């Protein structure tokens, strides 16, 4: 810095003053943020609970309440861990386990497609999906969220485990529009092939990994029915 520049500088404040001011401002900021966080936390938690409940009741038909679990290699936990997958067990009014909902994701046409799907252990099938987040082209790819024919693929999508219990008996896959023959196939939307493929891929990846891990612990989910 040359002298001319130095001369233009305002008189230098002492560093003590700077520290006092910065600390004071930071404390004020901390106070305001914590106060807002405290005040809004109950409302935010409630909003999130409602959002999950709506999604779970859509993918597990008939479910009126749900409980959150975290599935890891060593079984079910109530607290999330580093290698756990969050699942939502859905129950009816009599506390019977109706199904298990989990998240799945795959690359779509524009961006990742995130969805929630419901697995029904009685029919060993997927009973519904709900697209949580997507950016597909309006008019084409966004049909995956509301196209009735496409959604009907998931009334009872076969997700039986293979005899060895290591994966699905039949990989879930999308087929060309109008050529669905088996219960584990997804009839693609005409004109939205890429988005349909992504949904199939997401379900297949997630179900292949999750179901073999989940099924040994189904009894534990049922056992919670007894709890108040």
């Amino acid at each position, binding site marked *: 810095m040359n002298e001319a520049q130095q001369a233009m500088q305002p008189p230098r404040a002492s560093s003590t003053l700077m520290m006092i001011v910065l600390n004071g401002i930071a404390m004020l900021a901390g106070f305001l943020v914590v106060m807002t966080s405290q005040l809004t936390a109950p409302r935010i938690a409630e909003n999130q609970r409602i959002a999950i409940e709506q999604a779970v009741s859509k993918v597990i038909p008939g479910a009126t309440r749900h409980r959150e679990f975290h599935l890891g290699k060593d079984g079910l936990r109530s607290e999330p861990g580093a290698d756990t997958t969050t699942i939502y067990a859905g129950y009816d009014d009599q506390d019977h386990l109706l199904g298990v909902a989990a998240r799945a994701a795959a690359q779509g046409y*524009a961006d990742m497609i995130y969805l929630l799907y419901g697995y029904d252990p009685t029919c060993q099938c997927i009973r519904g999906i709900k697209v949580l987040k997507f950016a597909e082209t309006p*008019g084409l790819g966004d049909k995956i969220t509301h196209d009735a024919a496409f959604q009907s693929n998931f009334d009872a999508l076969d997700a039986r485990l293979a005899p060895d219990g290591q994966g699905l008996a039949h990989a879930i896959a999308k087929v*060309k529009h109008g050529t669905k023959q088996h219960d584990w196939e997804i009839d693609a939307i005409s*004109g939205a*092939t*890429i988005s349909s493929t992504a949904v199939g891929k997401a379900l297949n990846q997630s179900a292949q990994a999750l179901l073999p891990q989940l099924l040994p612990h189904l009894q534990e989910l049922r056992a919670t029915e007894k709890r108040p």
Partner: protein
Amino acid sequence: MSKPTIELRATPHIHAPHDVVKIMRNVVFASLPMAAWSIWSYGLSALLLMLAVVASCLLTERLFNRHNNTLGDWSTSITGILLFLTLPPGFPAWMGMLAGFIAIGMGKVMFGGLGMNVFNPALIGRAFVQAAFPVAITTWIPAFFEGRFTRLIPSTLTPPFTIPPETAAWSQQVAVDAFTGATPLAVQKFDHVAAPALHLLTGTTAGSLGEGSALIILACGLYLALRRILDWRIPLAVMAGTWPSAELFHWIDPGVYPDGLFMLLSGGLMPGAWFMATDMVGSPVTPRGVVIYGLLIGIVTVVIRLFGGLTEGVMYAILLGNAATPPDR
């Protein structure tokens, strides 16, 4: 104000007494056979759509350019006809008129009018409606359908700002032979079945109005090249970029990737290479620049077609080529 002139590229024929009107008139003549073929294939609807698009282009030019008389130099009409040729046959007339307005208003006038446009105006219009109406722009109609000179395609006269009616069932009904409703490129991409080259040459496949017959496009393009109105290096360079890169992927996995000939003849590559990429303003002036520009368009087209989400990539490849060309003024 002096008469507008166009600088020719550094060809050996710089003495040829070309001016804008003469050049543009020739381009119109050359594109008329293509337009006529599309009307022969799709009947009244195509004629109506062409009139709507060209009229919209002329009106827009008149609206924004009241002081200079640029209507008489054919350049606006040629934009309209080229734009028309990129649209699908059953495209609603109101959407065509919107495309014409955008092509002239945004693609040409906004950059300063004739000779100042950075991008090919017709492709700007097409790109806009492609993004705005993704369903209508990918709805195909069978060529040579029954009664095409006595009745219109149901979607042509859609009232402005409304959704065009579903034409899939209607298409099956009037189609002369089995009509899949998918373009050869889409069939190839999703089902890995390439249409035979003969069908592509004679135009008996689904597609945009100007994509019909590769033979006619080739003839019209050659006429312009012989009249020295388009630079023959550009279409050749585009093809030289397309064919080897397509063949390379075909060689890697013939089951998935189509061969070079299919790539050349299908979709909008032929009309794009001969009529869109050769736009005098958007293309480079030096011989070496022209070759790089053409190769770039060809390779980008192949990459978009094979690996992109869309089935056709010529439009974006040419716009990209335009963008990479430094303004020559």
